[in-house]
């Protein structure tokens, strides 16, 4: 994790020798291992199976009775009873009414069930490293439910005088000094009766898990047991580490964890050829990455306009879309070019006559003149009119003289 405090202060205890300078201890790299709850869950589930003892039903269960079945119920079958097929086909095993242990009809459990699981060494170590790393993050430990309000610092390292403790009372005193008492008390108060049938197997009571105290001089296998570290297969158990001065190196690092797990650069001394696994993302702060200058320089502007599907309109019917596609048609439809229009006007009625004779179509305008006389004949006159295009009937005018 990027945001990890590099130094860890060791909590001094009563009776601690002042000569040992314990101001700040560099964090071992294990605690920066990537936190992978999925890996831990898998490993924990597998490893917790390893302490199981085999159990099964008795092989005589259900058979220690003198009852007999009444036989197969007679049922019509396509296979004739005499044929060998009929003898071999087993009809559904119907337990007779007298068959006491109906459970025997399902196969009895066996002791050679696969109880234990083998987990790859690498994954196991990865899970332990993950669990350790999680125990150093206060928010995670809080989330798991530990009472850590009074704990001064995460990672919780205590001076090694804690290792010399013999009596419970002094142990409790140490917890008080370190602020871990509320958590221990919570564990003590949480004693309850286990629901379910496990009580019959002497697992009557259940407790919450308090802090896990890890001694500095105990080899890994017993101290940093994953099952302890990640009990309930949640990582982030409250872990109290003691600081072991005897293996203090020149730089003052907590050598135990480092030598056990190695650093990101060095491989571990205790575990042959094991190098701490790196996380997938070195810098997991996405918003920082996205808003960084390097990224923003290359980034394109936000596309805010949404292109929606527009309805296709038929240009043959819809003038607007037609003109959008072919602007020439606008002028063509509505006007003649200026010169032509002027020429037509200038030509006047004469043009009209030539048009008629050319096109051989009858174009005329009818005007009725009503003569105010007693005679009833109405004069019909054909008059030329101005027009731009030939039409069949131009105009009927009613004029009074």
């Amino acid at each position, binding site marked *: 994790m990027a945001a990890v405090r590099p130094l860890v202060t060791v909590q001094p205890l009563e009776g601690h020798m002042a000569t040992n300078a314990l101001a700040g201890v560099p964090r071992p790299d294990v605690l920066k291992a990537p936190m992978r709850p999925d890996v831990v869950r898998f490993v924990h589930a597998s490893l917790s199976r390893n302490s199981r003892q085999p159990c099964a039903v008795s092989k005589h269960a259900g058979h220690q009775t003198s009852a007999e079945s009444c036989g197969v119920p007679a049922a019509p079958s396509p296979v004739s009873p005499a044929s060998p097929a009929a003898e071999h086909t087993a009809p559904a095993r119907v337990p007779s009414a007298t068959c006491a242990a109906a459970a025997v009809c399902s196969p009895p459990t066996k002791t050679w069930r696969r109880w234990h699981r083998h987990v790859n060494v690498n994954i196991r170590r990865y899970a332990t490293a993950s669990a350790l790393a999680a125990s150093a993050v206060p928010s995670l430990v809080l989330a798991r439910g530990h009472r850590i309000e009074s704990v001064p610092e995460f990672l919780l390292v205590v001076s090694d005088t804690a290792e010399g403790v013999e009596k419970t009372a002094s142990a409790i005193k140490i917890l008080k000094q370190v602020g871990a008492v509320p958590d221990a008390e919570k564990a003590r108060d949480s004693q309850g009766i286990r629901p379910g049938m496990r009580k019959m197997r002497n697992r009557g009571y259940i407790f919450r898990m308090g802090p896990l105290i890890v001694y500095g001089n105990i080899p890994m296998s017993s101290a940093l047991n994953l099952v302890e570290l990640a009990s309930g297969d949640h990582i982030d158990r409250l872990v109290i580490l003691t600081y072991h001065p005897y293996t203090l190196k020149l730089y003052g690092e907590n050598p135990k964890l480092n030598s056990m797990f190695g650093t990101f650069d060095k491989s571990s001394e205790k575990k042959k050829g094991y190098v701490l696994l790196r996380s997938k993302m070195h810098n997991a702060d996405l918003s920082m990455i996205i*808003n960084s*200058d390097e990224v*923003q320089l290359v980034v394109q*502007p*936000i596309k805010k306009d949404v292109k929606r599907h*527009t309805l*296709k*309109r*038929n*240009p*043959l019917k819809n003038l607007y*879309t*037609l003109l*959008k*596609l*072919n*602007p*020439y*048609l606008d002028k*063509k439809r509505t006007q003649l070019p200026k010169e032509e229009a002027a020429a037509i006007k200038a030509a006047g009625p004469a043009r009209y006559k030539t048009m008629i004779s050319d096109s051989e179509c009858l174009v005329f305008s009818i005007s009725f003149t009503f003569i105010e006389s007693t005679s009833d004949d109405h004069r019909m006159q054909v008059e030329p009119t101005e027009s731009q295009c030939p039409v069949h009937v131009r105009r009927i005018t009613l004029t009074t003289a």
Partner: protein
Amino acid sequence: MATEEAKAVVPESVLKKRKREEQWAVAKKQAVDAKKKKDRTNRKLIFTRAQQYAKEYESQEKELIRLKREARMKGGFYVSPEAKLLFIIRIRGINAMHPKTRKILQLLRLRQIFNGVFLKVNKATMNMLQRVEPYVTYGYPNLKSVRELIYKRGYGKLNKQRIPLTDNAIIEQGLGKHGIICMEDLVHEIMTVGTHFKEANNFLWPFKLKAPLGGLKKKRRHYVEGGDAGNREDYINELIRRMN
């Protein structure tokens, strides 16, 4: 008081973001202005081209009439050159087809009944048509047919998608590199079977025509026999009117 405080201490990230957005806004405005200018010049260009084509078509028609009249006057006949452009319509469904004819129809992009495509006339295509004659009807479309098909039922293939030709920009996007930037260019290219006919035709998605109003005569017979299949030359235009 809160705003005063905020003014005093604006986080750097906010400042950066503002600056970035300003720059984007400027760039966008420039792009929009440039596009507007380009559109305006384009429009003029499209207008002049459309005008030119209109003249061209008119003169072609007049020329044809003139030649015919001339020949008639001399007592002979004017035989117009063989058509260069065909319009094919698939008139049969998809069931029970020989795989080879099926393949040819696929190559012609006629995968559905009453699909239509334009086709250039050459030995290769004519031979293909011969193979699929019972399944298609084809002929020589005139300007009105070509124009109406493209305007009403024209869709272009952009990015493998069937995009309606609602804007000249779409045509420009698809065929700009061949100098075809508007509907009229496209119509002209198809009509006159120009140098980029292949690209222009391929840009056009196969036309999905409606079933002909008034019906077909008899699909399983050749046109010549009173049916519908095969080459019906100029009468394809009448069919297109009914199917467009």
